[in-house]
């Protein structure tokens, strides 16, 4: 594995980002230019299955989504910690493995708690 790097090694990512962005912007502009454009009040109406739209689009969603998102962030952070360990897996050996196991045990204790409390039960 190549251990030294320069910021310019990240250039491909930037190029890819630029390409993705250019594709979206390009298609939007091109479709705007080459497509016929007719405007009428009927066509600009928001439309859903032939029924007129009522109320605000921003209705409150259930708190469950939020809870799942919080749990996702927490486990996300825990997983991030595993990355530097995994890169050095061989070098750290058994001791490192046990240390990681301890960390994972804390994680799993939290996970077990969540399951037992029924936080992840969706239909309730």
């Amino acid at each position, binding site marked *: 594995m190549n251990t030294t790097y320069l910021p310019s090694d990240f250039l491909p990512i930037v190029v890819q980002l630029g390409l993705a962005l250019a594709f979206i912007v390009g298609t939007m502009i091109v479709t705007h230019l080459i497509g016929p454009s007719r405007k009428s009040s009927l066509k600009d109406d928001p439309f859903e299955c032939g029924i007129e739209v009522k109320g605000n689009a921003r209705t409150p969603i259930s708190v469950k989504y939020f809870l799942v998102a919080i749990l996702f962030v927490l486990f996300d952070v825990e997983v991030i910690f595993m990355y530097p360990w995994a890169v050095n897996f061989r070098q750290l050996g058994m001791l490192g493995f046990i240390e990681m196991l301890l960390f994972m045990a*804390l994680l799993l*204790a939290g996970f*077990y*708690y969540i399951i*037992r409390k029924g936080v992840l039960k969706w239909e309730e």
Partner: protein
Amino acid sequence: MYPIILLSVLGIVVLFLGFMKSKNILLPATLLFLALALGSNFIDWNQGPLLYFYGMFSVTNLTLAFNAIVLISAFLIVAMTRGFQDDEEAQPAEYYGIMLFSLVGAIMIIGYEHLIIFFVGIEILSVAMYILTGSDKRNLRSNEASLKYFLMGAFATGIMLFGIALLYGATGAFSLTGIRGFVSTAAGAQSYILYAGLLLLLIGMLFKVSAAPFHFWTPDVYDGAPSIFTTFMSTIVKTAGFAAIFRLLSHSFAGIYDFWYITLAVITVLTLFVGNVVAVYQDSFKRMMAYSSISHAGYLLIALTALTAQTERSILFYSMAYSVATISAFGVLMLIAKEKSLDGRPNESYDAFNGLAKQNPLLAFVLTVSMLSLAGIPLTAGFWGKFFVFSSAADRGLIWMLVVAVLMSAVGIYYYFRVVIASYMKEGNTGKIRVAPFYQIVLVAATVITILFGLAPGFFEQLL
């Protein structure tokens, strides 16, 4: 070091004990675990200064003594939590678990040798406090307090982290010894980045111990949180926080005392002034206690500003006296507030104490002793706490600060005595309040400690 490991594991155990059908085991189990942690704390006693975990965590007799104060306070507070069993909504397993985890954080910031340890510790302590503040989910004021505390605390954490980053940028070290090494060089004493880092870190820390002008969250949060957790916050967080600030200043920045002492002196005087003067205008006993905790932060800051050889001992003694008196005051408050509840909400005004002494002489006595101790009247531990703090300021020659402090103590006597007068002199019908035996033991123990150390403060010196 041992209590950190033990409390981490036992916190999870308590959490899982909550899955059992019977909740009765939780309280004795938590008390047992706290006692175990306290016992394990003294394994390192008299082993001399030790460094654990690659020099990240230090253990001396004095940090062990701070740990002991924190753990004993937690023990007394947890022993007063019998009320959880009456409450349908309460989830004692979570509360006890979070309390044990928060003690891990407290112990870490008492003995940190490395700023990362300090940061993780104070985050555990703070996050636990945000949760406990909002634990009364049906109460809007508790929700408000929790949100306010969380938002302001998050900003304080950000400021603190920025300070740590600047310190690292200036010194190239996270460890206290490394920073001290840099400060003692000629370049270090002149580094502006170091100054900025120190000030930002201090602002974050002073926020956590609610020193003015970073105190604005304190009254609302202390008032909104359930009383039992207010007790926890005002004793344990404060004790650990001051131990942490002392550690930072004495171990790393004693070399540039001339730089930070003016800032700290201004903050001290402001804290004393705000805490004591605003406390006079409160109608609620609980809110008064919130301002009183600000004023006590001011007294503790005097010791820090002086930074003599005696400072650590005086902070230790003062926080012990303050914690014990606060616990017994809140213990009595919780009983009375529950007895006299209005519309199902605890009544925490001064009026609730009217005529307390007639039917409940013991409670009135406990309350009086704790108020005397908080006010710093002789023959209580609080007097000697103030005495040690003031004498260390006198050693440093901070006479003008002493004048302010003595004046403010006089103001303190006024508002502490209001509740004593209410309970002895005013008419009111408090029925006989039934006190659970456990609860009674806590109150009596706290009172005995206050009087014991008030009569023989030298006893405390011999313990160390």
